């Protein structure tokens, strides 16, 4: 469970992190370029709008100019007809929508007795056309810009915007055209008034968004119109904005007053904007200042929406990944459980069902294969173990049988005593001994079959049985050995052989016949305590060659002497340094035998001596010891 959780969580987190990074990178790239494009578009758009509006305004003003010029023709023709002046000015105001007022202002005393004469037609506040004679002492037009400039320069002129107190009673700008006589004297100034409201409407249409600023400045940088807060009509814009210490703004005004056209960035402490500006007419110039935040408001909104959507998408992705991976790795968890069950010894643990054809299926197949293999091996191991146990138990039985073949009841009477020991190196061995009392004689044998284990044990059993049988037939020792040899040699394909020492002691006379068939020489410990190896002719081992003629020998045992028979397991017993017990040590032992020691004592002491010598070393060969005491009367 833990594996699945951490695995899916880890993988999902990794996917989430990578996807988020990709999302963020793509979003940043998209936003960057969107930003660029929107900014460019906004600037182009603003410039285009400014340009269009300017053209519109210029066109209108130019129309007003030509209207006045045409009007000058008509006035000149009927200069004496004062009533006509009212008619023509009225016609101009009615025909031209943008012209809110028109006047023919004569120079002082042009008509005798009339110091002021300026017939004027205008749109009144209630939108009806009205006419009046402008000039009087309260409205001395001779001192007004719209009259004085063309009068003196003899050139047409656009006045700066002004409030026409006593005239149109509105904010206006006036185009004045001097009417000259043949003497090149100005006799009258013909005018057309354009409402500032109209200009304002045109410019207000430029208002791209709520926070944009529109600015219209005159040729000297004076404020004409706009939506800048805290600045009055005709005030110097540079001085106003310099108070706010905004160098960008100062630069903008300078560019505008020098009639330049362009775009520039505008930084204030709290806002980042751009300005599009261009000349308008008559030295005037307009600008639109747009804060970027407004331009990017929609982009920011889009960014916000994308972010929210992305977060939800990523969250959804994370949850689905987590679920899917968890589902995919669920079999792994179940495999883990199955492995735990198997670890506890149940090799038939239920495996999860896999329907997909993928790595998990491979895992399942491997797991199943492993399960089958383990079960197979366990079955095999059980069989092997059972077989081994059977062998071992059979070997143990064989050992019991073999050990019971050699006599363990030892005679100890007034004429002789016998004792023996057989210690197989393995469960069963090839060593054996036997003895049999028959009448006056006691027959004895000690033997060692070549090799060890079961084959040796089988040969040993045959040999011992042959000895048992033959010793009862009253044969001489040499014949007895020959018969044993022939028994073993026949059909001895394995060339197994036995070394034998066979003897017969006449308990009355002490005469001993013996035959050594390839066996170790036996030790004789005389009655006086002196010990030596009994000389014996070496006959070939038993079982090697059929029909071999064995020879026996005879010796006289004095009463009180003992025989020590042994197998090479004694003399070739090795200590840990591989040193052998040896013949001389055995002889030394025999020389130290006490007269009072029984046959059993001798066997016990000898095996103790051998064990002391070998110490920790393992026994490599069967050890057999047989002692016979020929007693005093």
């Amino acid at each position, binding site marked *: 469970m833990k594996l699945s959780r951490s695995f899916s969580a880890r993988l999902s987190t990794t996917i989430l992190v990578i996807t988020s990074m990709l999302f963020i990178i793509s979003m940043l790239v998209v936003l960057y370029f969107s930003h660029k494009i929107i900014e460019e578009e906004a600037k182009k758009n603003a410039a285009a709008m400014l340009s269009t509006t300017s053209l519109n305004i210029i066109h209108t003003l130019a129309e007003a100019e030509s209207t006045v010029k045409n009007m000058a023709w008509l006035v000149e023709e009927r200069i004496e007809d004062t009533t006509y002046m009212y008619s023509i000015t009225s016609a101009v105001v009615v025909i031209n929508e943008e012209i809110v007022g028109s006047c023919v202002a004569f120079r002082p005393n042009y008509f005798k007795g009339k110091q002021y004469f300026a017939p004027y037609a205008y749109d009144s506040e209630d939108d009806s056309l009205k006419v009046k004679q402008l000039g009087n002492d309260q409205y001395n037009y001779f001192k007004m810009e719209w009259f004085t400039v063309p009068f003196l320069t003899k050139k047409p002129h656009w006045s700066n915007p002004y409030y026409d107190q006593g005239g149109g009673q509105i904010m206006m700008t006036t185009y004045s055209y001097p009417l000259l006589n043949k003497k090149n004297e100005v006799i009258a100034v013909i005018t057309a008034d354009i409402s500032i409201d109209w200009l304002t409407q045109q410019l207000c249409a430029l208002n791209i968004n709520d926070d944009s600023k529109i600015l219209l400045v005159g040729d000297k940088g004076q404020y004409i119109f706009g939506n800048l807060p805290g600045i009055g009509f005709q005030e110097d814009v540079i001085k106003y904005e310099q108070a706010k210490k905004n160098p960008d703004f100062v630069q903008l005004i300078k560019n505008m007053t020098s009639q330049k056209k362009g775009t520039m960035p505008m930084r204030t402490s709290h806002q980042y904007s751009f300005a599009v500006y261009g000349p308008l007419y008559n030295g005037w110039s307009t600008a639109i200042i747009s804060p970027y935040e407004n331009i990017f408001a929609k982009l920011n909104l889009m960014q916000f929406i994308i972010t929210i959507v992305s977060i939800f998408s990523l969250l959804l992705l994370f949850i689905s990944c987590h679920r899917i991976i968890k589902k995919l790795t669920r079999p792994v968890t179940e495999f883990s459980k199955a492995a735990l069950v198997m670890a506890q010894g149940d090799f038939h643990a239920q495996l999860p069902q896999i329907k997909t054809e993928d790595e998990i299926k491979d895992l399942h197949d491997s797991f199943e294969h492993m399960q089958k293999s383990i079960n197979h091996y366990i079955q095999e191991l059980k069989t092997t173990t059972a077989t081994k146990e059977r062998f071992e138990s059979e070997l143990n039985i064989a050992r019991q049988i073999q050990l019971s073949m050699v006599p363990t009841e030892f005679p100890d009477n007034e004429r002789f005593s016998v004792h023996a020991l057989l210690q197989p190196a393995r469960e069963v061995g090839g060593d054996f001994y036997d003895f049999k009392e028959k009448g006056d004689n006691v027959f004895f044998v000690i033997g060692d079959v*070549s090799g*060890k284990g079961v084959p040796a044990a089988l040969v040993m059993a045959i040999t011992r049985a042959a000895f048992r049988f033959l010793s009862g037939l009253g044969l001489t020792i040499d014949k007895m050995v020959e018969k044993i040899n022939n028994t073993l040699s026949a059909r001895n394909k394995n060339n197994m052989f036995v*070394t034998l020492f066979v003897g017969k002691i006449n308990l009355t006379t002490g005469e001993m016949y013996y035959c050594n068939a*390839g066996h170790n020489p036996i030790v004789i410990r005389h009655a006086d305590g002196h010990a030596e190896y009994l000389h014996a002719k*070496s*006959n070939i*081992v038993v079982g*090697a060659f059929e029909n071999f003629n064995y020879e026996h020998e005879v010796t006289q045992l004095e009463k009180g002497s003992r025989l020590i028979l042994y197998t090479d397991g004694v003399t070739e017993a090795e200590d840990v340094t591989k040193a052998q017990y040896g013949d001389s040590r055995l002889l030394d032992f025999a020389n130290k035998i006490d007269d009072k020691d029984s046959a059993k004592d001798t066997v016990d002491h000898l095996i103790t001596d051998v064990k002391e010598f070998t110490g920790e070393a393992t026994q490599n060969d069967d050890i057999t010891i047989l002692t016979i005491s020929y007693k005093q009367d």
Partner: protein
Amino acid sequence: MNVTINQEGNKYNVILEGRVDTSNAAQFEQDLKPLMEASNAEIQIDCSDMTYTSSQGLRYFLMLQKHVMSHQGSLVLCNMQPQVKEVFDITGFSNIIKIV
């Protein structure tokens, strides 16, 4: 235990070194196999570096001897060390195998 066999025609010069005991008896049998398969073989085994033989080893000498006897060959052991010779003497093998 190490067995080196040099063959020249039907003459086999064998050098036998080390101990022949229960632990390497099977190997010894394997090493002697070429000799056990030859006919009319005149086998001479140099035993100067042979230090010990167990009864198992003797068994293979016996098998070899029986083989040469039945296949018109000959077997001679030479330069045998005294303690090894003693084993051959005790077991009566000196009576059936030619030792020089």
